[in-house]
């Protein structure tokens, strides 16, 4: 376990994400509405660069939406650029399979610096 400084908070405004290299690991750092999340930049599906994908919302359709498509969770979903697998940034879970999940690294802010613990 080691805590790494990845940059000043000002470099990670809300709604953005960046991939940083920490030693041999690549980590995606996400600012979702003011909360920070860090995920490995490796998709558990076929090892694509998950965190280089776009951050979007996603579709929902259920009895609660009257069985009409709704747009939900804007800014909380990252889609792997290789095969489009969607992951919930806030939980690390793949939206399409309980078998696929990515780790979440602890993120902190110390003296205006964003830190990630690997």
């Amino acid at each position, binding site marked *: 376990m080691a805590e790494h400084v990845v940059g000043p908070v000002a470099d990670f405004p809300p709604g953005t994400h960046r991939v940083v290299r920490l030693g041999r690991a690549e980590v995606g750092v996400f600012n979702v509405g003011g909360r920070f999340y860090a995920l490995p930049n490796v998709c558990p599906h076929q090892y694509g660069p998950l965190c280089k994908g776009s951050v979007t919302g*996603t*579709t*929902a359709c259920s009895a609660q939406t009257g069985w009409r498509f709704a747009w939900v969770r804007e800014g909380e979903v990252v889609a792997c650029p290789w095969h*489009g697998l969607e992951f919930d940034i806030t939980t690390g879970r793949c939206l399409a399979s309980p078998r696929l999940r990515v780790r979440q690294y602890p993120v902190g802010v110390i003296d205006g610096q964003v830190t990630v613990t690997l």
Partner: protein
Amino acid sequence: MTTTVMRPPERHARDAMVIVDADVHVDDAPGQLAPYIDRAWRPSLEALAGTPARYLDIPGYAPGMKLDPPIPGGQANRSVRSAAEMREGLSALGIDIGVLFPDHLLLFAPIPNIEYAVALSHAYNRWLLAEWLQEEPGLYGALLACPQDPDDSAREIARYAAEEKVVAVFLPTAGVNPLWGHRRYDPILAAAEAANLPVLLHSVTLVSPAFPCQLDQFENHFARQVLSHSFAMMANLTSLIHSGVPARFPRLKIGFTEAGVAWVPYMMWRMDKYFLEYRRMVPFLEKRPSEYMKERMWFATQPIEEPDDPRDLATTIGLYGGENRTLFASDWPHHDFDHPKAILKLPLPEATKRKIMGENALELFGIPAPAANLA
């Protein structure tokens, strides 16, 4: 030269086992249904009754569009014309309970005349109840759904919902267009769900522009038969999943007949793979397609695959959770029927065999277990 004699399975293998057959066929020739159809259409059926028919191919009634010559030296076609004959035939195979499907009206979906199709579906259901389900023990039936008029079909299902011997709704699958997942059929699926009747898809070999299309390009019936049933099931399963039927009808139970079982894990894996990529196109699915299939879809055995090593088939059944989701079916009296021994001989645990041969079907269809073997 040896002759194969059909015998029931040995008693010792059977005494503790109820055998339920999820797919047997009654001879619904036009002349049989004529007295049961609305007056306006009776002359049509009476006229058809007088015309020579080819097997499962009666223009204006069962439009199979057969392109092949009769098979040289092929076996004679069998049909069952009465409840007593059916009871006798099933008992000879050691089968206690059969779920009845039509012969000719397997080819019902491509009938274009809506009024006529509605009348025909009413006539079949009346005839099934009157002539088949009351007469002999152990005969249960599937109502004929009418994709040509889903609202009428929903009323028909509600009409028969309380009938003890009606245990399912048959969705005619060959040549149905659009496929069964289309929202136009929602009233039929809602009625079946409300009546707690499983829907059973059953295909047949026919040449039609609907899925599975282009069977006309093959030179012979071998190829058409190989592809027709299983492709129809794969296409309709995909259709049901892609429009969210298992999510939109959370209590609906769906059965697939006469396509064997080996295609089932293939479709589970294939749909799950593309669900990873395209979930946002089908957001009504709250779990993977395979999970809906394992929960609420059943698969009938016939025509059971016959790999060189039967252990491969036992493994295949395990791949889709088939212990609890497989239904024995013979397809009696059709040309490619399976004897119960085709399943009983598989290297499966006895408890699994009892489920597949009968217990799964009793539970799915809500049929009380008979006190003693009926066969």
